């Protein structure tokens, strides 16, 4: 007769005190392709179990010396990690004893007369259970290992992320921020950095989804943000770049709601871009009221680079104004009854004591009160910016010697034709170049200001022929930029040439910047008499207000020489630096 199961031979312990019964079981087990180990009582069974470590145990209930129930308890005590099925051999039929057997750890019963088919089926079934258990244990170990691995990876990722995210200026005491611990790896991201023009940008993002997909997106967002802010790119350029990156990386349906601000207190203006985020608020100290800024854009990552349109808002800004922004977690925070904190409550709180310095803590306190002990405390991010002049960052290491391979004596000429003027911003490229020059690198923030002034003058007044008088009033401020945009879009002809030349001096160096525009030029003679501005030829008469408006005061305070070449469309400045200058 051919045996039915032949997967792998199991060791089967048979504990049965009746010799003929034992013989029958032994034969069945052998015939089924397994290996029998026999014992005549419970004590022998326990010994044999320890010695042979069988896969299955057959235990007679009533045996001399030690009964099956007691033996089962001992055996069960020794097999906590693995499953060794125990089948009780019995002619018992009363329920109470069956219960006792199950409680002692029995998995099944076999009644007399012993039947080969029945026993084989039971062994097969229990082996299956045993295999399942083994698989389960193995999988559990694998999962545990994976989980440990994942936690390790997340720790590394978190460290990496923290390094990127906190490399900016979040530590400035004018920025107050609260991010619940859950928020950080649940997709809320906050980055802030000071640009070379002395402006500061802050971006609060809220990725859809939770966990890894969200965390993955925040890395390129943060590194792009920091890289570009530091190089002086505009907010729109930065957001366009981040949008493209996220659009490429994130699966369709995943995106990042964000509010981004660019604060420039020197220019007294705030730029806000918001996509998919709750309203943010600007507290105006002059009116003791809030200006509400609504999201006007699609979240980042939704549109392709081609489709991406960026609508930013410009607002005048004064010292001591306060800017508030948050992710939807704060509005949607629920209490135990599932009621949301809500816009209404937030507004009331803000209106009660407008602009109070304690408002930030109060908002967070109230939200936490609202949540109470309900388990929902995730993704809460609140940011407040107290608009103040940004403290000067500690200067880079001054004692650093000029290193080989760095730029020392050089010249650079950059020509921008009509088609490049509308969208392209040449300043990041030039600042990048300047950052390669020891001595200038540490002064790149100052030089950015100089270049920005010169370039803006050349473009706005020279090429586009705009009058700076417009900017004198708040309404004109907006009109000026609308006009600039309109004229840029319609520009037929115009160009700007930027020439830089750097010479090393024994104790420092000198950078000459010359900007030539295609405009008609402007009058500078009125200024000549009272300043160190040199002219190479006499110019026409004109108004000095216009002159002032063009930021020459600022340039004068920074540069060592300003020369305006006729007909007034070419400005040349010299910037001299000394190695032991105090920056």
């Amino acid at each position, binding site marked *: 007769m051919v045996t039915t199961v032949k997967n792998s031979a199991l060791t089967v312990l048979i504990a049965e005190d009746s010799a*003929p019964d034992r013989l*029958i079981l032994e034969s069945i087990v052998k015939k089924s392709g397994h290996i029998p180990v026999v014992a005549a009582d419970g004590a022998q069974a326990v010994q044999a179990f320890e010695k042979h470590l069988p896969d299955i145990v057959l235990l007679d209930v009533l045996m001399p010396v030690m009964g099956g129930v007691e033996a089962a308890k001992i055996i069960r005590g020794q097999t906590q990690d693995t499953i060794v099925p125990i089948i009780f051999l019995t*002619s018992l039929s009363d329920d109470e004893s069956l219960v006792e057997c199950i409680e002692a750890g029995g998995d099944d019963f076999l009644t007399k007369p012993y039947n080969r088919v029945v026993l084989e089926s039971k062994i097969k079934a229990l082996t299956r259970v045993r295999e399942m258990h083994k698989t389960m244990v193995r999988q559990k170990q694998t999962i545990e290992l994976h989980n440990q691995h994942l936690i390790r990876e997340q720790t590394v990722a978190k460290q990496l992320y923290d390094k990127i995210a906190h490399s900016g200026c979040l530590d400035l005491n004018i920025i107050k921020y609260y991010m619940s611990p859950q928020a950080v790896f649940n997709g809320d991201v906050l980055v802030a950095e000071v640009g070379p023009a002395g402006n500061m940008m802050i971006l609060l993002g809220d990725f859809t989804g939770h966990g890894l997909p969200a965390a993955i997106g925040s890395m390129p967002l943060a590194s792009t943000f920091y890289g570009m802010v530091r190089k002086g790119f505009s907010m729109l350029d930065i957001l366009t770049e981040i949008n493209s990156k996220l659009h490429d990386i994130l699966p369709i349906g995943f995106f990042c709601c964000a509010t981004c601000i660019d604060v420039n207190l020197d220019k007294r203006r705030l730029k806000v871009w918001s996509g998919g985020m709750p309203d943010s608020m600007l507290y105006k100290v002059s009116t003791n009221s809030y200006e509400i800024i609504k999201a006007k854009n699609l979240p980042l990552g939704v549109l392709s680079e081609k489709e991406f349109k960026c609508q930013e808002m410009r607002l005048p800004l004064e010292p001591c104004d306060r800017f508030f922004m948050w992710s939807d977690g704060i509005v949607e925070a629920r209490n135990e009854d599932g009621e949301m904190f809500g816009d209404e409550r937030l507004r009331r709180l803000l209106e009660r004591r407008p602009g109070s310095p304690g408002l930030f803590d109060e908002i967070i306190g109230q939200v936490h009160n609202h949540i109470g002990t309900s388990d929902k405390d995730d993704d809460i991010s609140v940011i407040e910016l107290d608009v103040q002049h940004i403290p000067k960052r500690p200067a880079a290491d001054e004692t650093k010697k000029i290193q080989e391979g760095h730029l020392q004596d050089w010249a650079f000429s950059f020509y921008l034709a009509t088609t490049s003027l509308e969208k392209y911003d040449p300043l990041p490229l030039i600042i990048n170049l300047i950052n390669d020059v020891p001595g200038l690198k540490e002064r790149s923030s100052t030089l950015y200001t100089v270049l920005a002034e010169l370039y803006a003058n050349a473009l706005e007044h020279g090429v586009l022929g705009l009058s700076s008088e417009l900017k004198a009033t708040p309404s004109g401020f907006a009109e000026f930029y609308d006009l600039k945009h309109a004229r840029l879009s319609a520009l037929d002809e115009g160009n700007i040439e930027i020439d830089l030349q750097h010479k090393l001096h024994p104790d420092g160096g000198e950078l000459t910047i010359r900007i030539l525009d295609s405009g008609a030029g402007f009058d500078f003679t009125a200024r000549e008499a009272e300043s160190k501005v040199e002219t190479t030829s006499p110019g026409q008469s004109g108004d000095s207000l216009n002159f002032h408006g063009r930021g020459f005061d600022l340039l004068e305070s920074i540069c060592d020489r300003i020369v305006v070449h006729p007909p007034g469309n070419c400005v040349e400045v010299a910037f001299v630096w000394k190695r032991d200058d105090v920056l």
Partner: protein
Amino acid sequence: MSDISYDLDLTLIEGLRELLEDKFAELIETFKTDSARRIALIARAVPAQDLDVVSQEAHGLKGSCRNLGANSLAAICDQMEQDANAGDASQMEQLLTAIEQQFAAIAAVMDDLLEYPNSD
């Protein structure tokens, strides 16, 4: 009671012969020896009113009988085990006699089965 009626499941026994093959004889011998030993223990315990031993051995004998198809003998053992467990000694003598007679008859048939394997 010379005309002993008993029930022996010959189909089951043939199944055992097939299963045990050359060990079948050993099984029959073991059954006879083990049963005889148990019956002797019961025979000693009944007059001594040692019902624990009676119960235990009757239980063991019952099991072996069921395994070898000796169903009527198993039924008498079950009766004896239950009586002993209940502390009822009134029928012990008669039950013992019935067990001894049936066992003798069954043992004889089993011997025949060993001698003439294909007699039926």
